């Protein structure tokens, strides 16, 4: 839930800060990416190590094995690797393009359909009341 500010020019303290389209897109993408997180808090027993007292132990060191076989890869590495294969249809080509239908907009406060856009940040709102809440809480201090 850390408040993150994207663009450098936000910091210069002008009263009417505004996000440009690119910054709005970045924020939207970041919000979407954060939905992939598994945890939002720290491991409560991190001090005990990753696999403390697991009942089952591999009879050799799995980590070493995977490393030696070249199997221990991050997602980014796998994607890079995929690009080098000459396969017509793969993870990258299967990515769906943006929808052909117009976007639907929902109030960032109450979730109901919205008609208005907050000028500084581009969030949506449906009523003066929701705009007030938005300005007091989330506007330009994007959380999660």
């Amino acid at each position, binding site marked *: *839930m850390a408040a993150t500010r994207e663009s450098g020019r936000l910091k210069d303290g002008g009263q009417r800060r505004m996000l440009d389209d690119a910054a709005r897109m970045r924020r939207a993408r970041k919000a*979407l990416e*954060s*939905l*992939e*997180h*598994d*945890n*939002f*808090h*720290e*491991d*409560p*027993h991190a001090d*005990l190590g*990753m*696999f*403390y*007292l*697991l*009942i*089952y132990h*591999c009879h050799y060191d*799995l*980590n070493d094995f*995977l490393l030696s*076989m*070249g*199997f*221990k*890869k*991050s*997602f980014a590495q*796998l994607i890079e*690797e*995929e690009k080098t*294969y000459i396969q*017509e*249809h*793969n*993870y990258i080509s*299967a*990515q*769906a393009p943006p929808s052909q239908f117009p976007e639907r907009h929902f109030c960032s*406060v109450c*979730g*109901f*359909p919205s008609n208005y856009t907050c000028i500084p940040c581009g969030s949506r709102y449906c009523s003066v009341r929701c705009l007030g809440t938005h300005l007091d*809480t*989330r506007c330009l201090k994007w*959380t*999660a």
Partner: protein
Amino acid sequence: MNKQVLVLDNGANAAKVGFSNATEPKVIPNCIMKAKSERRRPFIGDQISECRDASGLFYILPFQKGYLLNWEAERNIWEYIFSKDCCPVNFNETCLVITEPYFNFASIQEAMTEILFEEYECSSLLRINAGDLAAYRYMKENPGEMCCLLVDVGYSFSHVVPYIKGKKIKAGIRRIDIGGKALTNHLKDIISYRQLHVMDETYVMNQVKEDACFVSHDFNGDMKEARGLLGKNSIVRDYILPDYTTIRRGYVRKPEESGEDSEQVSKY
């Protein structure tokens, strides 16, 4: 000769496991969980039912973005799944059918094959997309059909896959990177913003989602309905959260049955 067949649908959220002649598979959370209240042990899969207080669970998931990346975690979960406590298997006498995501990466496939043959000494192995099996069954049950379009909503992504005469058309497969995990996290966001802080309560919020959320067949109509005042609103519900003393699992309640008490979460 008569070998038994074990099917492991190794999903990013839940593993579904069972012998081919069983009526129902066992559904095991495909993760390791650490509880704040329990320092002595982590909980693997459905062992979480032994945990007295499932608030603030910390998750270790073998899958990232829909692909099996954390083998250490997965190996520990498999050890549990194949053990006498869950689904005992004698691999020497068993053929294993295991599912993998669409466009699984070559090195993940190799690692899986390697581990299943070398570690478990699996006698034979079939790696297949879960959707292929669903399409196969559909074609068997509907002999006249020429094709089907399969929608596989996963944990980190969803695929739409065309099958023609039982054959998967790879060129037509499309993926969006939204699945059950994003929905649960989105629900956590919404509730944390509007009502109470539940960002650490994935386990409970996932139950809320499964208990209370539904797919609308008339989106605009339902949105209108959900706006209605209490009493004129057929969608709004209260949700009673577990407190792990008297209530071990949360549940949905119709608002009129409420006697204004405790924490409640209403949603549409």
